[in-house]
């Protein structure tokens, strides 16, 4: 009897998985569509702003090229404008040029490749590990909660109750 109840609980759990999978797929798709829609500025001006927001002003503390009024930042904005007007294909190429001229400290957002990629990969890895850990922990708790008392367990409890009753009577 206990075996059949456990199996039922397991089946119930398995039936829930497609729902979770479907939800995960929907979330991933929604994020992918949203990020694709957000990338690619509409106008040259938007593109200049977007690139200059990714670069740090080389002579300021914590200011981007976009917001700084320092000479160097204004010079870099003019160069970005020239590149955009010339039709330089990608933002990364423009950023790479500025980085080559002024050094890596001009990069406000770390690269998504090489050693810098760890900045992006490690939090994602930690998140996945945490989710996996929580899933395992929840499953263990659930299995413990689903445990059904055996006949021996019932007999033990009954014997204890009988002893208690006898004590009361005496």
């Amino acid at each position, binding site marked *: 009897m206990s075996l059949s109840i456990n199996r039922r609980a397991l089946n119930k759990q398995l039936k829930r998985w497609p729902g979770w999978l479907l939800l995960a797929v929907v979330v991933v798709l929604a994020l992918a569509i949203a990020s694709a829609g957000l990338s690619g500025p509409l106008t040259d001006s938007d593109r200049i702003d977007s690139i200059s927001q990714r670069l740090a002003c*080389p*002579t300021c503390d914590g200011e981007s090229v976009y917001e700084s009024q320092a*000479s*160097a930042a*204004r*010079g*870099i904005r*003019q*160069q970005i404008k*020239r590149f955009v007007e010339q039709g330089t294909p990608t933002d990364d190429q423009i950023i790479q040029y*500025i980085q*080559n*001229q*002024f*050094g890596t400290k001009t990069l406000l957002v770390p690269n998504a490749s090489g050693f810098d990629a760890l900045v992006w990969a490690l939090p994602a890895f930690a998140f996945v590990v945490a989710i996996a850990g929580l899933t395992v922990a929840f499953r263990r708790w659930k299995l413990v909660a689903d445990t059904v008392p055996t006949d021996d367990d019932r007999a033990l409890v009954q014997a204890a109750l009988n002893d208690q009753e006898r004590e009361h009577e005496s």
Partner: protein
Amino acid sequence: MFNFFNSTCVPCVQEHPELAKFAAEQAKLTDGAEFYTVVWDDNHGAVQKFFADNGGSWPILTDDDARIEVAFGVAKVPETWIIDPNGFVVSRHLGGTTDDQLTRLLAQAKAGL
């Protein structure tokens, strides 16, 4: 040689007499270095007045659109660059400099050619 300059920058003003001395010495030599000042983000009149008041008859390049400044990656002035006759950068000095230092850097650059 390129010297990146701004008339409102204190180290630029401080090093100017040394640059004038160096440029005058180079002008006397048959193989002396050509000296240029590059100005970005400054008032043209203020620069002219500064040179008139403090001396210096070498060419002044006005970098109106920051093209030179960005191409050289100059974030702060003053900076002095030595470029060989083939167009290769042989020395870059950040901050203020002196006649002696520039003479030494130039001699090292020529020795390395």
